[in-house]
């Protein structure tokens, strides 16, 4: 995971600060997230959560963090306990068995982690607002 750079670590720290205690990410949790972010890792039964993030990407605020309610939102826990937001609207994300992620606006193209899924969503949206799910 070459990308766990200083920048990324700082972003995670900033997001933690921003979350103001809404979530607890332990050192062990972070380490687990690092090892499961790549396609080769871990597999189906590793429930370590990716690190939270909070940044402005192409003019839009993207955030990711542990989901409220222990990941059982909407009865499915699709994001395996992790929720992603674009300008405050939740983006439906899902973790694949190999540790990669997809979102409802990019459902057939897995990426390495939830932040990459959020950025792919911003690219795809071209400025459009997200419709809160479940749609309709």
């Amino acid at each position, binding site marked *: 995971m070459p990308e766990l750079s200083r920048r990324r670590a700082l972003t995670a720290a900033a997001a933690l600060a921003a979350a103001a205690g809404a979530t607890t990410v332990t050192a062990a949790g972070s380490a687990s997230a690092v090892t499961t972010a790549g396609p080769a890792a871990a*597999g*189906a*039964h590793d429930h370590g959560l990716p690190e939270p993030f909070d940044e402005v990407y192409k003019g839009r605020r993207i955030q990711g963090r542990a989901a409220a309610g222990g990941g059982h939102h909407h009865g*499915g*826990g*699709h994001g*395996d306990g992790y929720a992603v937001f674009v300008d405050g609207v939740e983006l*439906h994300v*899902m*973790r*694949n*068995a*190999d540790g990669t992620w997809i979102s*409802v*606006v*990019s*459902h*057939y*193209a*897995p990426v390495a982690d939830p932040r990459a899924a959020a950025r792919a969503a911003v690219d*795809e*949206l*071209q400025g*459009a*607002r*997200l*419709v809160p*799910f*479940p*749609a*309709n």
Partner: protein
Amino acid sequence: MTVRKNQASLTADEKRRFVAAVLELKRSGRYDAFVTTHNAFIVGDTDNGERTGHRSPSFLPWHRRFLLEFERALQSVDPSVALPYWNWSADRSARASLWAPDFLGGTGRSLDGRVMDGPFAAATGNWPLNVRVDGRTYLRRSLGTGVRELPTPAEVDSVLAMATYDMAPWNSGSDGFRNHLEGWRGVNLHNRVHVWVGGQMATGVSPNDPVFWLHHAYIDKLWAQWQRRHPASGYLPTGGTPDVVDRDERMKPWNDTSPADLLDHTAHYTFDTD
């Protein structure tokens, strides 16, 4: 008996009738119900939980039944219509007749991905996007930008050569024919085509683009070709698998059909060629 034909060989009249039937389903509201159903399954099917329409062995029989429902709806409008299929390993460019204005229309403009020609262009007023994941109400495409190349015949052949239908853990991490055809593993056939088309086809509400049906009709044909090539290989798993539709278990949302009931497509339709 319904005969599903290669889209490239449709006559002008066949194209016109197919388009008219699709537009009538849209006008009546029946079309959007298919989009809603698909999105509900795509967000509900998970690798570690219940999975039926995608990332699971029932990906193929589920879509076979889903397409049958859609084809029957089309035929209730015009009994002469059958679903055509798009062999994307042969008709692999944005210049294919599939994308001409007399059929599905072409790619989207660069500004916003909006499809500007053909019967499904927003400007016609006939194709509003009602079931959607974002604010945009117009059909979008970006042919060949999300990924540059459609699968080749050799790549298709390499997947058809896989003798085992599916394998544990029966999800996106599986080895075997189903998951390689679906595309979560290996050369990536089905998933890659969704990405190549772009626009709504790359999202959970992919049936908003009528090419969804032609893509899946070809995936369905590849399943039939695989069966002929591996007559000794059957649907797996055959029983007792949590969260997964076993061969004789009924599938949601219909609850009246099992994969076993759908293995032989000739009960419902045939293809123009092998």
